[in-house]
């Protein structure tokens, strides 16, 4: 809520326009009656129902009075009525809403119930009741409108003061024995004033429209007084001969209503501090040249080289990521939040938002180049071959559809399986992830599942077509520790029994070590080390070692605090020229700040992006 955005809201085109309009109406209300009042009341039997002409720019009404002058003069009464009614409604409503705060919960409930019934009652109906009891006329309609505004203000004040009522300072005031009326005036009202004033401004516009409609119906302002509503009601009968008689007041009502509502909205926006949001633009899709045939490799299921993801604003959370996944292999991607591990997984799966630009030197899956494909082409290529397990099981299942339906639609859509057999397959897959009583469970909605069951259902969903690769984006982050192991075991089973390869993303290196064959360690958008899980105890990169060092095990001395990695990882916007880990690294030397170390391939498919650790490894081996 910066001052600049506040000012931006008020000085934006809408803010300026509404301010000018409201100011113009206020000026009109002051100067119009003395200037044109006489002319507006001048009855001219010789010029009745005339169209626009030189003497009367908007023509005359059925008594020969000048329509323009009347429309301008009516500003004062129309505005004054709306203002008085809104203020009265606001004051009475606020009092009604705030008072219960000082009383017990029983009184508060009663007030809330009364306000509820009151709110449910339509404005016009309430106005009619009042018009009948007090007779029709200016005062009666103002009272009627004020009465209809009371409940919404009361509700607002009630909600706001309830939050104040639970606050520490009011509790302190009560303990100090400050009398109730002082509690209200000194503690409650000042803290809820701002939203109430905003609501008042917005309500003036609505009040103006409502009062005009009462006068239009003939139960508001009575002759000889006139406001826009009455002019409109009278002008309507002459709409064939002099349409301006109805149109002029109609335009005034709309303009004034819009001006006040807009001013209120602008003020509210200024207070909230959200002046104009910038939505991301869609990234341009590039279609690179096709790969030569000899670059393909049958023993590689997924081949990613030089993957780079750019978000709007030039932020690149993933830079030069290169890796391969062989059929049936489980590869883990590990790193802290912000390391680019999830973005990498989503980029490979083609599920990043359209605003993200994905570039890759090579992105080949099962022999097909995935680069520059349209959504439709990706659907055909990946539909039966790639399964995706999302991060948050609580929000990743559609709440409006039965779980079985959400599983069955995969095979219905891609393989044209009939509904009944697709459902049977869904039940079978749910049983496969050890969901008890799968027939009944399949017919349930996601909210009837626990978190662990939902994640298992999502894994079953990814396996509907028995894909060649499952990409799991932090599949265990939202789950209890005990459930995490069960869920990961399901991915391992799929790999063992059906030869499904998997990419599993997690921040938990121990969890991945128990599941994967190979680990990719990511830091600040780059892979810093690739290592077989078996070789993990000999990990070389200082960051991998720090991750491993942060794990407590049975030998950890519990009297000492747990090891942590000092500092925090840089955000993608802070990536500099040198090694991103250097500021937190125990091995760092001055040259680490200058050049980002390249990812060098060592023997056995191992890769490492740290020359200093590399030297140590080589020396250690020698």
């Amino acid at each position, binding site marked *: 809520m910066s001052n600049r955005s506040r000012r931006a809201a008020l000085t934006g085109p809408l803010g300026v326009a509404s301010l000018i309009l409201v100011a113009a109406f206020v000026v009109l209300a002051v100067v119009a009656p003395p200037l044109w009042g006489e002319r507006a009341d001048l009855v001219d039997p010789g010029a009745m129902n005339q169209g626009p002409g030189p003497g009367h720019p908007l023509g005359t009404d059925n008594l020969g009075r000048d329509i323009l002058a009347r429309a301008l003069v009516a500003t004062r009464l129309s505005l004054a009525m709306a203002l008085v009614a809104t203020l009265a409604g606001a004051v009475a409503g606020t009092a009604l809403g705030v008072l219960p705060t000082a009383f017990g919960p029983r009184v508060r409930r009663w007030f809330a119930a009364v306000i509820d019934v009151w709110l449910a009652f*339509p404005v016009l*109906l309430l106005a009619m009741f009042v018009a009948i009891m007090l007779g029709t006329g200016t005062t009666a309609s103002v009272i009627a409108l004020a009465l209809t505004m009371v409940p919404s203000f009361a509700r607002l004040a009630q909600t706001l003061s309830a939050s104040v009522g639970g606050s520490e300072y009011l509790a302190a005031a009560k303990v100090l024995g400050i009398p109730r009326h002082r509690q209200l005036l000194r503690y409650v009202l000042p803290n809820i004033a701002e939203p109430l004033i905003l609501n008042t401004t917005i309500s003036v516009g609505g009040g103006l429209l409502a009062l005009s409609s009462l006068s*239009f119906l003939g*139960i508001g302002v009575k002759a000889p007084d006139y406001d826009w509503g009455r002019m409109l009601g009278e002008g309507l009968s002459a*709409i064939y001969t002099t349409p301006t008689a109805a149109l002029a007041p109609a335009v005034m009502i709309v303009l004034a*209503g819009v001006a006040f509502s807009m001013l209120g909205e602008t003020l509210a926006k200024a207070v909230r501090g959200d002046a104009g949001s910038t939505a991301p633009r869609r990234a341009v899709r590039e279609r690179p040249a096709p790969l030569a045939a000899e670059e393909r490799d049958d023993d590689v299921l997924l081949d990613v080289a030089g993957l780079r993801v750019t978000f709007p604003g030039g932020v690149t959370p993933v830079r030069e990521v290169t890796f391969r996944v062989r059929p049936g292999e489980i590869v883990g991607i590990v790193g802290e939040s912000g390391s680019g591990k999830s973005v990498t997984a989503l980029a490979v799966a083609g599920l990043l938002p359209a605003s993200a630009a994905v570039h890759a030197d090579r992105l080949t899956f099962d022999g097909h180049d995935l680069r520059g494909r349209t959504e439709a082409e990706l659907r055909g290529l990946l539909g039966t071959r790639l399964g995706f397990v999302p991060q948050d099981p609580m929000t990743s299942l*559609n709440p409006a559809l039965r779980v079985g339906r959400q599983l069955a639609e995969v095979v219905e859509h891609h393989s044209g399986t009939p509904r009944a057999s697709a459902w049977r397959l869904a039940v079978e897959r749910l049983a496969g992830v050890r969901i008890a009583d799968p027939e009944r469970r399949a017919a349930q909605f996601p909210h009837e599942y626990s978190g662990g069951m939902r994640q298992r259902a999502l894994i079953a969903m990814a396996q509907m077509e028995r894909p060649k690769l499952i990409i799991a984006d932090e599949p265990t982050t939202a789950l209890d520790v005990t459930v995490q192991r069960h869920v990961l075991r399901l991915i391992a089973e799929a790999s063992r029994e059906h030869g499904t390869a998997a990419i599993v993303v997690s921040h938990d290196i121990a969890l991945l070590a128990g599941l994967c064959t190979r680990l990719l360690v990511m830091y600040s958008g780059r892979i810093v080390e690739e290592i077989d899980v078996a070789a993990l105890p000999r990990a070389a990169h200082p960051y991998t070692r720090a991750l491993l060092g942060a794990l407590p095990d049975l030998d950890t001395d519990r009297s000492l605090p747990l090891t942590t990695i000092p500092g925090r990882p840089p955000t993608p916007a802070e990536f500099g020229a040198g090694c991103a880990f250097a500021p937190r690294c125990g091995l760092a030397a001055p040259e680490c700040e200058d050049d980002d170390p390249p990812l060098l391939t060592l023997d056995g498919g191992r890769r490492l992006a740290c020359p200093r650790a590399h030297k140590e490894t080589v020396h250690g081996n020698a």
Partner: protein
Amino acid sequence: MKVKRVPAGAAAFLARRLARLLVAVLVVVTISFAMVHLTPGDPIRTALGPTAPEELVAARRAALGLDQPLLTQYAAYIRGLLTGDLGHSFVNGQSVAEVVATRLPGTVQLAALSLGLVLLLAVPTGLLVAVLTRDGRRRGLELGYTAVTSFFHAIPEYLLAVGLVFLFAVTWPVFPVAGITGPSSYVLPVLSLAIVPLAVLTRIARAESLRALGADYVRTARGKRLSPRLIYFRHVLPNTLTAVLTLGGTMVTGLIVSSVLVEKVFNWPGLGSVIVQSIELQDYGLVQGITLVYAVVVLVANLIVDVLLGLLDRRTTLREEAA
């Protein structure tokens, strides 16, 4: 969540809502009774005018039972309501029930056609615009859409009606201006009533669709490589309905009330024009009966909407009610 408990919860929910409706109706009946009997002055004298002979006023008063003690009158009023007697006009003694029977269908037709039009168009339009403008695409369309819907949102129904009359009955006489002369007579009144709620509801539908489009479960659906048609209609649409229908439900009341104004503009033979006339004539007998009918229609409409939404979204409503 056990299957057995749902009907019991639904019954309790229904019972609670019906009880609330009964209390509200009783309050409205009492207010409408008090409205006439607590009004300062003599309503019969007002209705018949200052020149009416004293004997006529006394006779009318006796005929309507207004010379009885207040409690007796209240009891008689309620007894009458229970047998379908809504009272009589103070001016000509006509039965209110008869007036309602001849005029209510006109109002209901108008409101029902408008509501149908709104519900039919709001969700598809909102979804379509949401899909076209998602991720900041087609900024021009988004701007135009926001401008048009805000414009209609700011204009009250009766002014829209006046504008439509001016454009399509006076300037280009395509449609009749008043009364019912055939199917074409319905076009302008229904549009006048429908356009404003449509503008509001379609904005809600777009916002809800955009929210659903950005939801994790839609990414899951994309991860399953479903076709856009399936994603939009099966995964997005149902998740926008609850919010849209809840808001649409609150608009029913507004629609009924706005019909009073729109009926006046189009001289529509409905209940609205009668009540406006009888307020002008200060015929409190007729006003009392008709306001009562309006109030009960509004209350019952609210109840129906509540129950429908409760059935539609059992999870939230029943859980709330149980808490």
